[in-house]
């Protein structure tokens, strides 16, 4: 009877043309993300977190010490593997069942089915998959269950599975090898006859075993591909000498100016000092960092185009630069602004802060939420801390306003060091280490997380909950003067339903940051103050935090309100990738690899770093197997001449000149010779002379020991199958650049925060990036790439460096061997496995 019902359900459902309902698709994505975090997070962590996985492998090592157990395992595994194709899911499920944890066993099955469904779903919507195998994708989308329905079915399977285990005696929390029979029975009762299971299995077999799908054998992201958007790319800002010098002057002023009424400089003010100086919210705008003191204040001017001599202004005419566009978006916001930013400081950060203050001052219902990495500051602590304290004082003091800023909870992230660091150095050890005087001194001066954890995202989202008016800016731009100001960056602006999905991906980052803020040990007052003021002194903390987050809570988790119907407003597809806070998604690397493997004609890489072995491996495959042309443009890490003491050397005319012979340096050159041998040219970005001259002038003017403004090639981008090399001269055509291969490929460009180095790609940093399948943004990216390739870059062999004296001591006499040695030392540690006796 049950079987008949399931079959009927399937038939009824399929007639409803499941896959095409765009509107449902948006909410499906949101639901799916939430399911992963709320219902399945602990199971997912058991499968992927190294400490969790380590416990499971220990259990199995103990288990298989008895050889008769191994035979039970093998026999049961034979039954399971016909329906669960993922080995790690089978192993976890079996453990749970044998130890009496039937609900968890059922949930493991559920997570497997959701993942399988998501994988199929993502493949159907992947423009590259469609370009390679249109017929196969058409077959795949036939009778595909929409998530909402699949979800119901999966819940049913889970219940059935848990019940069957219970009936077979899996009731107590103890080990019993005979429960292997219960697992087999539960498969017979609930899994083997299920139409969804069988259909997913069939599709997975087809997808992987016949059509040679190039994507990952797991869902790269639970948000997949989102259609119906508009995209604009922002990759320019004013960099005329006067704008650069102006920025340098402003930064110098920030670092040197005396705070009013206190015998301290601004940079030395504490949060309490700032509070003292802000009698009213308005005072934060008008009495600190004032125009009278020489500070530029964008909030005082209505029109961003007034700042033509500033990096915060237009590039030319009415065309705004990257910062100006984002500031303009904030001004136009109606409900909320959300910012997750790695670095926010200096005069740029101060101006952004004031624009945000102004929003909450002018509109009592307006909400601003800023989360930021507050631990990784390197040499920029002064300019970052000053702005953080300024904003934090405002947020703590004016709890009647909806303004929040708090550090991200980065300790929930996994390490970006080799995995064994997470096994070696436990949380307690980190705490002990942080108390160590030597370590403390080091962290205070240079500031970085001991286990290389960070929130490296650079995201701004305005009105993310609005059905059509939201805008999300995802890119590589930091909001600070050094490593921000005149850096070469790329930011993609998205309008449309994807905005809400991007915003929702940060919900738990904010939630965890707010929870962390209430930790009495950390002395946080902001969230506590706001809860007391808004909900009363006795209000429960967690429930109140969720209420505070309502303006950015797309799923209305607290209010239970009906989900918003997001409408398509354009035809661009967006695929989001992230290394999220819980590590339930670490998809930056997979998105890049999938794009590289899915390229049909050309790959352009422009990134600050490129030395992740997996990415390199994928590039090699693309070049050798798919015959794709590849061009690599990276930051030249040591392009400035230095003397023996490490000071920069200026030439006779007083300019710090770039030296092409310095080329690409370690670590960016680690793979360059190998890429070159495959016919993949690599170039290092060469800053325009006027920019270098202005940076040098700024350095001399303010007597800095090293330049504070860098014009770093700071992009973290990639594009595939866009404007071909042969068509690059069409970039200047009035009609726009030609996409000569667009009919048989899927042009796409990546914008975001994730560098292509091994630490980032390991997933340890909180990153966010988006791929835009959109001709206009791809053309914007590619045309600038070609312009830089032709005019602002220098070819590199990767060997333009002097062997260090240590190489000689190690018996290494040639550069290639030296690079190989470094590679072995660096990458071998990332190839890590753990076993037990």
């Amino acid at each position: 009877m049950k079987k008949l019902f399931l079959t009927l359900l399937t038939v009824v459902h399929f007639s409803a043309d499941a896959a095409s309902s765009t509107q449902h698709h948006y909410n499906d994505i949101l639901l799916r993300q939430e399911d992963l975090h709320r219902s399945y997070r602990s199971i997912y962590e058991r499968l992927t977190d190294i400490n969790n996985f380590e416990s499971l492998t220990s259990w199995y090592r103990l288990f298989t010490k008895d050889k008769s157990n191994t035979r039970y395992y093998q026999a049961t595994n034979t039954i399971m593997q016909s329906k669960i194709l993922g080995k790690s899911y089978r192993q976890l499920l079996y453990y749970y069942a044998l130890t009496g944890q039937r609900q968890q066993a059922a949930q493991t099955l559920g997570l497997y089915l959701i993942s399988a469904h998501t994988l199929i779903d993502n493949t159907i919507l992947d423009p590259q998959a469609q370009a390679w195998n249109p017929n196969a994708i058409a077959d795949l989308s036939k009778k595909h269950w929409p998530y909402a329905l699949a979800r119901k079915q999966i819940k049913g399977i889970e219940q059935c599975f848990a019940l069957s285990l219970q009936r077979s005696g899996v009731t107590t929390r103890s080990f019993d090898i005979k429960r292997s029979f219960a697992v087999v029975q539960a498969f017979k009762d609930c899994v083997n006859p299920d139409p969804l299971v069988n259909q997913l299995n069939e599709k997975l077999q087809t997808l992987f075993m016949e059509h040679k799908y190039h994507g990952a054998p797991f869902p790269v992201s639970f948000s997949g591909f989102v259609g119906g958007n508009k995209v604009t790319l922002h990759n320019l800002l004013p960099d005329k000498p006067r704008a650069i010098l102006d920025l340098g002057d402003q930064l110098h002023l920030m670092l040197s100016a005396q705070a009013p009424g206190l015998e301290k400089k601004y940079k030395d003010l504490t949060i309490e000092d700032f509070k003292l100086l802000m009698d009213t919210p308005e005072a934060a705008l008008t009495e600190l960092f004032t125009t009278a003191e020489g500070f530029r204040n964008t909030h005082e001017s209505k029109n961003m185009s007034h700042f033509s001599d500033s990096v915060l202004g237009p590039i030319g005419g009415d065309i705004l630069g990257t910062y100006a566009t984002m500031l303009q978006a904030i001004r136009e916001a109606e409900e909320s602004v959300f910012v997750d930013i790695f670095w926010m400081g200096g005069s740029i950060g101060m101006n952004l802060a004031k624009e945000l203050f102004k929003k909450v001052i002018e509109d009592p219902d307006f909400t601003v939420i800023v989360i930021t990495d507050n631990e990784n500051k390197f040499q920029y602590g002064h300019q970052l801390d000053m702005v953080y304290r300024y904003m934090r004082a405002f947020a703590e003091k004016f709890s009647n306003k909806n303004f929040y800023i708090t550090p991200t909870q980065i300790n929930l992230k996994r390490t970006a060091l080799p995995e064994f660091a997470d096994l070696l150095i436990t949380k307690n050890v980190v705490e002990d280490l942080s108390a160590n005087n030597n370590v403390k001194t080091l962290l205070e001066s240079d500031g970085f997380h001991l286990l290389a954890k960070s929130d490296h995202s650079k995201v701004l989202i305005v009105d993310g909950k609005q059905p059509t008016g939201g805008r999300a800016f995802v890119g590589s731009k930091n909001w600070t003067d050094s490593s921000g100001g005149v850096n070469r960056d790329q930011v993609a602006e998205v309008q449309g339903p994807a905005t809400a999905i991007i915003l929702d991906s940060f919900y738990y980052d904010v939630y965890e940051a707010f929870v962390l803020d209430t930790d009495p040990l950390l002395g946080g007052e902001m969230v506590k103050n706001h809860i007391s003021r808004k909900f009363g002194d006795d209000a429960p903390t967690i429930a109140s935090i969720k209420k505070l987050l309502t303006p950015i809570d797309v799923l209305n988790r607290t209010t239970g309100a009906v989900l918003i119907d997001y409408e398509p407003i354009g035809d661009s597809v967006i695929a989001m990738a992230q290394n999220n806070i819980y590590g339930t998604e670490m998809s930056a690397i997979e998105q890049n690899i999938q794009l590289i493997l899915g390229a049909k004609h050309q790959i352009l890489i422009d990134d600050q770093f490129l030395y992740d072995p997996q990415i390199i491996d994928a590039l090699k495959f693309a070049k050798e197997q798919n015959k794709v042309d590849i061009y690599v443009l990276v930051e030249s890490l040591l392009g400035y001449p230095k003397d023996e003491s490490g000071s920069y050397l200026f030439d006779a005319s007083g300019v710090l000149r770039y030296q092409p012979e310095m080329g690409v340096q370690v670590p960016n050159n680690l793979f360059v010779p190998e890429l070159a041998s495959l016919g993949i040219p690599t170039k290092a970005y060469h800053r325009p002379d006027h920019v270098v001259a202005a940076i040098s002038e700024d350095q001399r003017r303010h007597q800095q020991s090293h330049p504070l403004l860098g014009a770093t090639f700071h992009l973290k981008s990639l594009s595939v199958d866009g404007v071909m090399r042969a068509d690059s001269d069409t970039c200047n055509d009035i009609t726009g650049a030609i996409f000569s291969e667009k009919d048989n490929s899927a042009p796409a460009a990546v914008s975001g925060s994730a560098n292509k180095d091994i630490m980032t790609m390991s997933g340890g940093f909180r990153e966010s990036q988006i791929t835009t399948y959109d001709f206009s943004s791809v053309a914007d990216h590619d045309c600038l790439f070609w312009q830089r390739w032709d005019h602002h870059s220098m070819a590199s062999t990767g060997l333009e460096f002097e062997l260090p004296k240590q190489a000689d001591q190690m018996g290494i006499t040639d550069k290639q061997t030296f690079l190989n040695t470094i590679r072995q030392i660096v990458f071998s540690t990332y190839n890590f496995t753990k076993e037990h006796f």
Partner: protein
Amino acid sequence: MRYHMIFPFLFVTFWFSSVYGSYPISEYELMVVEALPEGLNLSMSLKDIEETKLKSRVQQNKNLASQLIADRLSALLSGESFQNGYNLLELAQAFPFQDILTELIAAQTEESFQHVDKESQFLAFILPKVPTAKTQDAVLPFKRFYSLQKAPVVDNSQWGFRPEQSYSELINERVLQAIQFSYENNYVQLNRNEPFFVGLLVQINFAGPESTINVQLLGGLPTDTEFDFDQKEKEAHFKKIRMPRRPKLKWLSQQYSSHPGVIITASYQQSASQPLTLNIKFGSLGLVKGENWDLTRSPFENPLLEIDGITINSYMARYNTPHLWGEILAPLGIGALDWWLAREYNIKMNIHEVSLDLATLKISDIRVLTEFERKPEFLSWSVLRLPTIEQQAVNDQFVAAANKQLEPYQKQVENIKTSLETQGLVYTLLKPEVQKQFLTLLNQALGTEVGGTP
């Protein structure tokens, strides 16, 4: 018989020129093997298992190590040299491994670990990683590009964790595949006949004052190579130093155990009379057994087959060892057989094992097995194969001769000792220049000028 010995160590001097170039880059991996903590049981939740591990002795040692490392590292990072240049190589050189190890061992008192496991063993392997291209799955050709730690929904491969496989099976399988791959892809360049790096094992056993550290380096020997050598003794005229041959049959040549190999083991035990010893073993590449790497087909000792101090080791075995090769000159004292041996056989002296005390650079033991090899012109299907024999007196002669040769070089060993004192055993042994220095020293001590046909 007195042998002026050129030890077949000279191969090792090639070693380090090839170690850093022959195997594809980034294709090594670190594998750590730990004892399961006591107190685990199969009913435990994963969280309980994690907590039990946190209380284990291994974890306590890790915590201590982390603290010591962080303390020293932060001092170095704050130091002037690093602040000026961010020189990571300098940092690595200045890192006080010896202090850290000494402190770790000093902390291994029974009192400090009353509530946890009494012993804790920890193995760290550096293994050749089978290149990702090799792991390509015919069914899922693109899977190799993606991490396997993100719970693939399609994954029926033999890669990754397999409960039914023990750690040693896993390592042996991995090494076997890597070696085969190396040969198939000429990473081990057969035409150049170079030695090659297979793996490194660091074994730490914390057991109070009996704590030990062993470092094993497993390498493949060059094959089909010989060096000219001229040494005339009363009984034999040695003309060559020969490396073992590789089987010519393809199926055999791709077998792991067909490859000649060497294991260099350095052992450190503070409480022992010889705290630091080195052992070099030649044979066929072998497998991990227990907690050590071993070579296969090592000669065995059987007292039942001993006659007048001569042990008949084997009638059949042919050992994959370097050897001195020469012609028999004088009667060996076995009567009527003398003329026949001298006419139809050549002599091979297989070097199997050398042990020495590193602190004094004194050789404590050498095992040499004598083998009689039928001259080609007398080869036939029905040829009589003679036993391989081991004679303690010959071993002793080798030891005495080697030690005599070593005497002038005692001073040179000071460099290594200083390095050990300042930088610790593991680091010292991992430093190529120290290895090179050490091996050059051995070659100088044990050899004369050689010509060769590598």
